[in-house]
C-alpha cells in the first residue's frame, strides 16, 4: 500500500502547477471565458509544446505512454484554474477512443498529430435526446457505396469550437459506429451555446460526406471501454477544482473581517469550508482508487462509477459552499469564483451524470442482472 504520488507524478504536478499559475492566471481565465471557444492559439501552442496531448498515447504513435494516474495528476492541476479548452476532449477522450476503436492505419495517421497538438480531436456523442447510453445515439449514417452521409444534430458537445477533427457516433444499420470527420467539412456548422455553461456547442450535420476510410473499427462497446479511463481523469480535474475552491475559501476566511474578526472564526463559516474539504477529499480518493485499479488492470467499474458520482456532486456542492463563504464578492465576475461555478455545472453531466452512473452501479454491484 502506497498512497503517495511517485516522482514522475510529483514532477507533472509541479510543472502543471507552474503553468497554471504563470500562464493561466485569473485575468487570462476571465478573458478566455468571454471567448466563444475558450482557448487561444498562443496558449494552445504552449500546451502542445509541453507534450500533454501525447501522454495517453504510446510511444510508437509519438506519445509518452504515461499511466492513467500520471495523466490524472496533470488534469487535477488544470482543474485548479479551471483551465478551459479541448485538452481533455482531444488528449484524453478522443485519444482513448482512437486507441480502442481505430484501425492500425488510423492510429498511425491520426495519433502522432494529435499527440503534438497539431490536430485537435473532439468527440461528439450526445444529441437532443440527451444521454450517455447507447440508445441515446440516434443520428444515422447513410451508406453510399463504401462511403457515408451524415445529417442531424449533436448537442452539448464539449469544446468542439476548437476542433480540427470530430469523432462522431452515428448508426449504420441500427448499430452505433464511429466516424472521423473534418471539423471544417462542408455541411458542418458548430455553434457555441450561451448561458451558465462553458465551451459547450451545438453541431449541425447537413448532408456531410464521410469517407469509408474514416469509419473506425469499433462501435459503442469500444467507446464505453475508451470512456472508462477518461472518466476518472475528468474526475481528477474536478477534484483539483475543489482544491482551488478550498484554498480560495480558506484564504478569504482569514482576510475578510466582519464584526471585528476574520469571518473564519465563526463556526458557520468554518462548517462551509469543512464541507468543501470533505467534498475535495471524497472526489480525490475515489478518483485515484479508480485510476489505480485501471492502471493495475483490475475490474474498475464500481470505482469508476463511484468516482464520477462523487466528483460531479462534489464540484457542484463545493462551489455552493464556496459561495456561502464568499457571499457578495463571490458572485462578482472579476473575483473569479464563478468560473468554477459555471464549470462545475458544465461538467456535471459530461460523460454521464450521477444518475447515469448510479444506474451503472446497480449493474456493477449485481443488484440487477447485467
Amino acid at each position, binding site marked *: 500500500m502506497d498512497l503517495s504520488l511517485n516522482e514522475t507524478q510529483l514532477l507533472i504536478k509541479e510543472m502543471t502547477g507552474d503553468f497554471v499559475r504563470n500562464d493561466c492566471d485569473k485575468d487570462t481565465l476571465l478573458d478566455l471565458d*468571454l471567448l466563444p471557444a475558450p482557448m487561444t492559439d498562443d496558449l494552445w501552442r504552449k500546451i502542445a509544446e509541453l507534450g500533454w496531448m501525447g501522454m495517453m498515447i504510446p510511444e510508437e504513435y509519438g506519445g509518452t505512454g504515461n499511466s492513467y494516474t500520471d495523466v490524472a495528476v496533470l488534469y487535477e492541476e488544470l482543474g485548479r484554474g479551471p483551465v478551459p479548452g479541448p485538452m481533455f476532449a482531444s488528449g484524453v477522450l478522443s485519444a482513448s477512443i482512437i486507441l480502442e476503436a481505430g484501425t492500425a492505419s488510423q492510429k498511425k495517421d491520426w495519433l502522432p498529430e494529435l499527440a503534438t497538438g497539431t490536430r485537435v480531436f473532439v468527440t461528439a456523442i450526445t444529441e437532443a435526446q440527451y444521454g450517455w447510453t447507447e440508445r441515446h445515439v440516434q443520428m444515422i449514417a447513410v451508406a453510399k457505396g463504401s462511403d457515408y452521409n451524415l445529417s442531424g444534430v449533436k448537442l452539448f458537445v464539449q469544446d468542439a469550437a476548437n476542433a480540427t477533427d470530430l469523432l462522431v457516433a452515428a448508426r449504420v444499420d441500427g448499430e452505433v459506429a464511429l466516424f472521423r470527420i473534418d471539423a471544417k467539412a462542408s455541411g458542418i456548422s458548430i455553434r457555441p451555446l*450561451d448561458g*451558465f455553461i462553458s465551451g459547450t456547442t451545438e453541431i449541425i450535420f447537413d448532408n456531410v460526406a464521410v469517407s469509408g476510410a474514416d469509419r473506425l473499427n469499433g462501435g459503442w462497446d469500444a467507446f464505453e471501454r475508451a470512456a472508462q479511463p477518461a472518466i476518472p481523469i475528468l474526475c481528477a480535474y474536478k477534484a483539483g477544482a475543489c482544491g482551488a475552491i478550498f484554498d480560495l475559501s480558506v484564504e478569504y476566511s482569514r482576510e475578510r473581517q466582519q464584526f471585528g474578526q476574520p469571518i473564519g472564526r465563526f463556526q458557520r463559516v468554518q462548517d462551509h469550508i469543512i464541507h468543501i474539504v470533505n467534498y475535495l477529499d471524497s472526489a480525490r480518493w475515489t478518483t485515484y482508487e479508480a485510476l489505480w485499479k485501471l492502471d493495475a488492470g483490475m475490474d474498475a467499474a464500481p470505482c469508476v462509477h463511484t468516482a464520477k458520482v462523487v466528483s460531479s456532486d462534489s464540484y457542484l456542492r463545493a462551489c455552493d459552499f464556496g459561495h456561502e463563504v464568499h*457571499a457578495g464578492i463571490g458572485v462578482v465576475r*472579476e473575483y473569479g469564483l464563478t468560473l468554477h461555478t459555471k464549470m462545475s455545472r458544465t461538467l456535471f453531466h459530461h460523460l454521464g451524470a450521477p444518475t447515469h452512473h448510479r444506474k451503472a452501479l446497480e449493474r456493477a454491484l449485481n443488484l440487477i442482472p447485467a
Partner: protein
Amino acid sequence: MDFASEDNEEQAAFREVVREWMQTKIPDGMEHTVDTGDLTLEQYQLRRELGRRLGAQGWLYPTMPKKYGGGELPVENVVILHEEIGRAGFSIPPYYDAGGRMAAPTILVWGSEEHKDRFLPPICKGLVRTWQLLTEPGAGSDLAGVKTIARRDGDDYVLNGQKVYVGSSHGADFSWTVVVTDPDAKRHENLSWFMIPMDLPGITVTPLDLLTAGGEGGTGSGVKNTVFFDDVRVPAENLVGGENNGWKVATTHLEVEHGGAGRFGDRAIINEFIEFCKESHNGHAIVDSQESREKIVDLYIESQVTRLFAMRNYWMAYTDQPRSYEGSQYSLRRKLSGLDISEKMFDIVGPYALIKDEKWAPLKNALELFQREGITALHPGATTDIQRVIMARRIGIGRREVEKAGKIR
C-alpha cells in the same frame, strides 16, 4: 384553520373587478421576461406604466393606507390581487422597487407626518422607483459596520462613501440608506436613515457584473450597481426617524427583507417546471423515467414547505400576530430550497437547464436564470449564516433573553 378562503360575495365581486381591469390596463407589448432584474428599457418603461396604473387604483401597494396612496385592502383582497396579477404572469410591483416593498413600511413606522405625506404617495402611486443602499465593500453581514459618512452642514448632510450590490438596471428616482452620523458613538448608536433623491450632484452609479456574463460579454442577470457618494448634499429633512436612530429604523425594513412579511402563493416556476416535465418532446416525456418522477416529487415537497412558511408569515404580518424567528426561518428556507430546487431541476433536465438559447432552452431561458439565482440569491438581504444568527437570538438558544422581531406595521 383556513388556508385560503373561498371568496365570499364581496370578494368574488372584487376578483371580477380585478380581472376586468387587467383586460384593458396591462399595457400592450408587455412581455413575460424571465429576468425582471434585467429588463430592456422598453419593457422597463411598460412595467413602470403598469405600476402607475396599479398605483392609481391603490393596487401597487395594496396594504398601505389609502391616505398615502395605498389600497388599505383586507388581507383576503390582497391575496386575490396577487393571485390575479400572478395568473397574468406578473407580480406586484411589476419591477424592482425597494421603495415600496421596504422603505414604505419603514417610513410608516418611523417617519413624521411630513415624511409620510412627502415620500409615500409618489411611491404608492408608482410615480417614482427607489433603490436600497445598504452593503458596502467592508460591511456585508456586518451591516452596522458601514463607513459611509454623513456630516451635518447647515440644513444639509454631506455624504461620502460607497455602496455596492445596488438596484437593477435603468436607474432610480430615490434611494434609501443607513450612514454614519456620529463616528464617535457606540456601534448601533451612530447611524441615521436617509431618503436620497438620486439626481443630487455627486452621486455616481457604475454597473457591477454579477454571475454570470454570457459568452459574448453580455451581462447576465442580477444586474447590480456600485453607487459612489462624493460630497453629496442631502437635505436634513430627508433624515427619517431621528439622528443616530438609524439602526432602530432599519429593524423594520430588515424584518421585511428577512422574510417577516411573507409572501402569498407558489414560485411560478415550480408548476411550470412540473408541467414541462409532463410534456412530450419527440415522443419522450421527462416523467417517463422513474428517477425523474422521484426527483420531481422531492422538488414538489421541498417547494410546498417553503410556500407554507411564506403563507404563514404573510398571515402573521397582516393580522398582527406576535412574530419571532419566522421571518428569518422563511428567508433561510427560501434561499436554501431555491438552490436545492434549482439543482434538482438541473439534475432532472441536464445541461438544458444551463443554456440561454432560442432554439433549445426550455421555458424561455427561465431554468438558466433559476440556476444562477440559486447562487446569487444566497446572500442578498442577509446571508444564510446571518438568518441563522437572527433565528438563534429570537428563539433564545443558549440565552434566556429573547430578541424581539422588528415592527413592520
